[in-house]
């Protein structure tokens, strides 16, 4: 995996000024900075369209009023969270196939962003429900399956946090990433059938009569959410990639130290400190049990 595709190596970051000036230590590149500024401009434009320019919903039969504006964020973040988990699943398969670190880093970055977007889907859906149905939580099919999804990927991140060895972690997490995503449609259909026995209300059902600026706000929101996801992916990928390289960078030093144990003067001088070296039994059990 190459962590970057957008900028040539060795770009002089100090040459630019203003918003384009890159922090010397950051995860930003010139390309990602430009991308980020475009997204930022898009966000401002989106907020203006969604909150100011677009009219309240009065024409349609549902009469959602200003509440329709919630849809402009709710639907896009929902789309982004499904995109994120799809990417986690695909990169997990790619990891199991290629066994290279980069795919694992992509999978975790995507899952983390996905969990945030899922949380926002639930939050905005709940706010919507409070107005539309009068309750903070309705057992609506899509909201419910999104909730299950949310907890499932919290589990994915918890599994990653519980395993120290990077290879074991990557392998188990990759399998869980696939297993969890396979579960998404099953959860969705089971919950839909389950609710289908009672009612058919859903937040995300786009009103066919929606048009004009309202439709534009919705579509623009979706594009923007996916673009924002992409920007976050670039930076979180670089962050995790840097962290992984940092973990691995000690290897040369560790090898030198390890070989130095074999030097007789080191052994006799540090006879007491050999106890500090993990014994065979401890090291094997610590990593393999």
């Amino acid at each position, binding site marked *: 995996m190459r962590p970057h595709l957008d900028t040539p190596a060795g770009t002089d970051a100090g040459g630019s000024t203003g918003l384009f000036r890159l922090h010397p230590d950051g995860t930003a590149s010139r390309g990602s900075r430009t991308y980020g500024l475009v997204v930022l401009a898009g966000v401002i434009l989106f907020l203006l369209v969604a909150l100011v320019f677009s009219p309240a919903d009065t024409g349609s039969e549902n009469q959602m009023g200003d509440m329709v504006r919630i849809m402009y964020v709710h639907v896009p973040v929902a789309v982004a969270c499904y995109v994120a988990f799809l990417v986690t699943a695909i990169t997990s398969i790619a990891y199991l196939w290629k066994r290279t670190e980069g795919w694992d880093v992509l999978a975790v970055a995507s899952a983390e962003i996905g969990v945030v977007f899922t949380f926002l889907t639930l939050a905005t859906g709940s706010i919507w429900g409070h107005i539309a149905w009068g309750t903070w939580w309705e057992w609506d099919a899509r909201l419910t399956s999104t909730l299950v999804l949310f*907890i499932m990927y919290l589990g994915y991140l918890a*599994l990653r946090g519980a395993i120290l060895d990077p290879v074991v972690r990557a*392998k188990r997490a990759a399998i869980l990433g*696939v*297993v969890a995503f396979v579960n998404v449609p099953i*959860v969705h259909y089971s919950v839909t059938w389950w609710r289908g026995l009672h009612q058919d209300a859903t937040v995300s059902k786009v009103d066919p009569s929606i048009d004009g600026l309202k439709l534009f706000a919705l579509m623009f929101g979706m594009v923007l959410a996916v673009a924002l996801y992409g920007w976050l992916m670039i930076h979180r990928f670089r962050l995790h990639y840097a962290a992984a390289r940092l973990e691995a960078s000690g290897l040369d030093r560790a090898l030198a130290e390890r070989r130095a144990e074999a030097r007789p003067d080191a052994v006799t001088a540090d006879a007491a400190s050999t106890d500090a070296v993990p014994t065979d039994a401890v090291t094997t059990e610590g990593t393999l049990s």
Partner: protein
Amino acid sequence: MAEHPGPRPGSLGALLADARLVAAKDLRLEWRSRVILSQVLPFAVLVLILFAFALDPDRRILGQATPGLYWLAVLFSTLLALQRSFTVEAENGVTDSLRMSGLDPGGVFLGKTAGIALHLVALQLVLLAGVTVFYGTTPHGPLLLLAAGATATLGLAAIGSILGVMAAGLKVRDSLLPLLMLPMVAPVLIGASQAFTAAYDRDPGAGWRWIAMLGVFGCLYTAIGIVAFEPLLEET
């Protein structure tokens, strides 16, 4: 070296032979230790009693909620059975022995799944008697109940084996396994409860599509487990 008796390694016959060997070992282990019988089974019955305490002694509510409560009890017991089943594989270097054993990892998965499923079947027979006695409900539609029980048990055992070995050997496995397992098996809980409801309501027609869903779930995760067990067992 001694010539290998039995089917050719790598063949389907070898896979099933390994599965049978592992499943028989798990049943023998239970026969010798009786952990499921003496601990998980009483726990399952206790859950049924606690539901009654929590809800009401009024049998009407318990009767209506029987399918859901029954499957919740099954689910909680499954977690305990899984912890037990995969703790024995992670202790005393048994994991290394398994890797060295020459057993097909897919066969190990099938064997563990079959062992857990058989334990769950025994548990469910007792739980079914339990809800009949304690909640005053009479089972109907034996065919639907049987189909729902079989497909849901397969699904629980299959995904439980995948997640069980995934969490095995970790310090936090006791809290991690439920977090991984419970959202994953939400479709099983829904489907099996709905199928049981249909059976108890003498409306079996509504139940069969749930059986299809449960069957797909079980077969899908069985297939994934056969493939995924090799990297899971291998670890490094």
